[in-house]
């Protein structure tokens, strides 16, 4: 297991390198003068050429690109991702303040999705070809075709504006989280139902299940000891990926519900071209993906001894 963990950690290095290149590249291609934009954000009234020159020197903007990349990397390793063009707040602080809200929302959505989709997909597999199976598959197809931001608006229209059941704006309160979590879990449910169903179907037709049946084991025992443990790996993989996606791809839904998370902040920054905050989002998203993938791989390795020996 120790060697496996080390090999997973080593595999992360090139990904981190690519993230750093992407982030630095995004900053390097930004049109407009970073120095004067930052001076404006600081609230300097009259921006003199001398002040700009001073700021440029402070940010090492006139160094050659490879040197600037080295500087960027050193700062990033220290957790310094620059300051917002608008509020002059440090980007890292802005993200640390909001990432908890995003994590709560993503966690609820993943949980909700798992609670609904795993039983749905399992039952569909066991009753293959039934009306129930058809309904589950329809849910799966529909869930991945409907745009999330639109469902969010439709929910707000019916549940908030018409019925006054739930607040229009999402907030990290029990009542405020229901609608955003529900909307986010939809695509999750679609993917997970489809996957659970096909994973279950696959396992149910394996030889070891047939052998277990031939031995005369009860269906319940077969399910508990032979089928479910084998379904854990694919389901866990997708759950992890979905969680990572919800931490980052939820930006549009967060925006619609005005959820105080990193996605909403990134969209707001994107609309006013606040580059440091936008780049911070790309870095945050990359780091979240890397971390979640690593956790999923390690979780799978603990469940499945075959993976460890690879």
């Amino acid at each position, binding site marked *: 297991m120790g060697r496996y963990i080390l090999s997973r950690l080593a595999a992360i290095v090139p990904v981190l390198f690519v993230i750093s290149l992407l982030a630095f590249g995004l900053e390097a291609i930004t049109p407009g003068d970073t120095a004067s934009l930052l001076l404006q954000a600081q609230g300097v009234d009259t921006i003199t050429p001398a002040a700009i020159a001073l700021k440029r020197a402070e940010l090492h903007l006139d160094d050659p690109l490879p040197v600037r990349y080295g500087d960027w990397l050193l700062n990033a390793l220290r957790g310094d991702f620059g300051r917002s063009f608008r509020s002059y707040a440090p980007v890292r602080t802005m993200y640390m303040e909001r990432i908890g809200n995003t994590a709560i929302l993503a966690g609820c959505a993943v949980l909700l999705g798992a609670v609904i989709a795993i039983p749905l997909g399992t039952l569909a597999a066991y009753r293959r070809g039934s009306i129930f199976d058809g309904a589950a598959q329809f849910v799966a197809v529909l869930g991945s075709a409907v745009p999330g931001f639109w469902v969010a608006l439709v929910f707000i229209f019916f549940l908030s504006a018409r019925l006054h059941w739930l607040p229009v704006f999402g907030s990290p309160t029990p009542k405020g989280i229901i609608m955003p979590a529900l909307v986010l879990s939809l695509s999750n449910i679609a993917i997970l139902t489809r996957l659970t169903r096909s994973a279950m179907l696959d396992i149910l037709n394996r030889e070891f299940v047939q052998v277990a049946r031939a031995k005369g084991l009860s269906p319940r025992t077969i399910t508990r000891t032979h089928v479910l443990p084998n379904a854990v790996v694919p389901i866990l993989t997708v759950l992890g990926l979905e969680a990572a996606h919800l931490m*980052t*791809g939820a930006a549009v839904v967060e925006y619609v519900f005005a959820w105080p998370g990193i996605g909403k902040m990134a969209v707001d920054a994107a609309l006013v071209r606040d580059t440091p905050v936008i780049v911070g989002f790309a870095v945050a998203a990359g780091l979240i993906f890397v971390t979640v993938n690593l956790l999923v791989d390690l979780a799978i390795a603990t469940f499945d001894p075959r993976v460890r020996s690879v």
Partner: protein
Amino acid sequence: MATAVEIPANALAGATTKAAPRRHAKLSVTAAALALLAVIVLAAIIGPMLWGQDALAQNSADRLTNPSLTHPLGTDKYGRDIFARLLMGARWSLTGAFVVCIGTSLTGFLIGTTAAMSSRTVDGVIGRLIESLLALPGLVMALALTAVLGPSFPNLLFALIVTSWPSYARIYRALILKEREAGYVDSSTALGATKPHIVFRHMLPNVVGPAAVLATANFGGVILGLASLSFLGLGMQPPTPEWGVMINEARAYFQTYPWQMIAPGLCIALTVLAINLSGDALRDAFDPRVKRR
């Protein structure tokens, strides 16, 4: 990164007792999806001409009207006919997604093939790059790139291509690596053919099928991505009637005129649904292993 979930598709070989009615149901679903897709494509191509009303023509006397015979879906805040705008929106969504799918396919093909036909070192570097990019969320990177380049439809298409080629490159690389072992490649090399000649004249026709299936499978997702980012204001800009833009514009009036927001969303959902179902059928037809599922 996380192990890919691979489900052996031939696992169900023996379990087809109820196959006949199910296959029948599946066929009718496919037929319905293809018919719906045909209607949407036709609406996009000739719809705006047939309908005759201008999607951009403002009419201050007819602002925010309820559905009527002249305006079956009513008019928006500038008195523009919503049905005409939906038809034009179909054009933008479909052509936009088409451009992105072609662009990513081409980029993925060029990079994947370069990797597969190059030395082991180059292949290793490109392979690592592809894997690293695949480990990152494409839509988030597209959002960031569009925002930095400046919000516009061409920039959005460019950003989506730049961020989504890796999955295509991986598949093309695998396909070309397999083709490289084929006898016809040795024969061509013996005849003195150059690498580009072999790739474009002999290998390309052999790998185009699976790649087309992949592009179709991604098409629906691209439409959703385009609509989401346009909705946020990072893609198509008003007054162009793109579906995401229309939903955003209708947000302010959704309490009193809900269908202005509901109609474009339904268009997106139906289009993606039709494309995804057709894509599934296409994959089943091309990949004999999954036929029985």
